[in-house]
């Protein structure tokens, strides 16, 4: 659906409060050790965006286990949220925001909080027959 501009958006869309990942709001406050009906769905969400490796087969349980806790901590770190390891209100509020389908973690490596590229200043010192390579990490 393409709307030429925002004024063309129909009332039904203007006032909607529907959020795609609505169901996740029911998990607000969940923490390790709990078993909550439907929790496997948020594990699928975290696997989708790379926070749970593909090596974990799709049949997740509703247990709030270490797999989920680690995924949440990495998510919180990536998005600079408080790293609580729990599904606190702010983390849930962030999870339900529409987003790009590309993963944040690829092959177990988080692309996000690796931060800026390290730059090395390369210089050669003449001493001796063979110049020596010096590098300074910036």
């Amino acid at each position, binding site marked *: *659906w393409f709307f030429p*501009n925002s004024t063309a958006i129909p009332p039904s869309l203007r006032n909607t409060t529907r959020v795609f990942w609505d169901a996740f709001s029911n998990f607000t406050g969940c923490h390790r050790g709990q078993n909550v009906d439907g929790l496997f769905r948020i594990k699928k969400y975290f696997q989708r965006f790379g926070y749970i490796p593909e090596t974990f087969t799709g049949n997740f349980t509703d247990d709030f286990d270490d797999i989920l806790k680690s995924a949440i901590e990495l998510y919180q770190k990536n998005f*600079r949220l408080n790293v609580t390891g729990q599904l606190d209100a702010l983390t849930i509020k962030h999870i339900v*925001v529409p*987003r790009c389908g590309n993963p944040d973690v690829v*092959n177990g490596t988080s*692309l*996000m909080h690796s931060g800026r*590229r390290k730059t090395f200043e390369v210089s050669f010192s003449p001493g001796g027959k063979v110049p020596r390579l010096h590098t300074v990490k910036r």
Partner: protein
Amino acid sequence: YALFPGEPRWPRDRRDLTYAFDPRNKLTDEVKSVFARAFGRWSDVTALSFTNVESFSSSDITIGFYTGDHGDGESFDGVLGTLAHAFSPPSGKFHLDADENWVVSGDLDSFLSVTAAVDLESVAVHEIGHLLGLGHSSVEESIMYPTITTGKRKVDLTSDDVEGIQYLYGANPNFNGTSPPAATTRERDTGSFS
């Protein structure tokens, strides 16, 4: 900014890139012009150029709107949720969720934040970053930040984005670091938006 593992980028002999739309989408010129603008934002700051061509099968970058399972293993999920995805160089695949409510023009002043509609150009600029080799950034203001709030328009590259793309491809010779240089994409010059 962050890069994909292995830092894939378009090779030196392929910096004048072409892009085409899936003819099955029958997009209007108005919608196509949004992508021309989005490509222009990246070519303003780096040594790449983008030209819209008709041939979908042979262009460097292919752009399509699809719903649900569309064959690449990354199904779309209907309104909101995931909006689009794009593959790292040199794949050039750029897919958008056809179920979304896309706002084409840039006038979002009267946008209400709780609507279920998304600004097309904001998503296009982000996904083009992936097509060129940028990963997701943890800097919230960056274009390459993974989420976009409905009703929000975010199309201006930040220094984080510019630093990342210039690390991969160098600067546009005309880029003086402050205001973007004159447009370099052919399509943009003819777009009805400009």
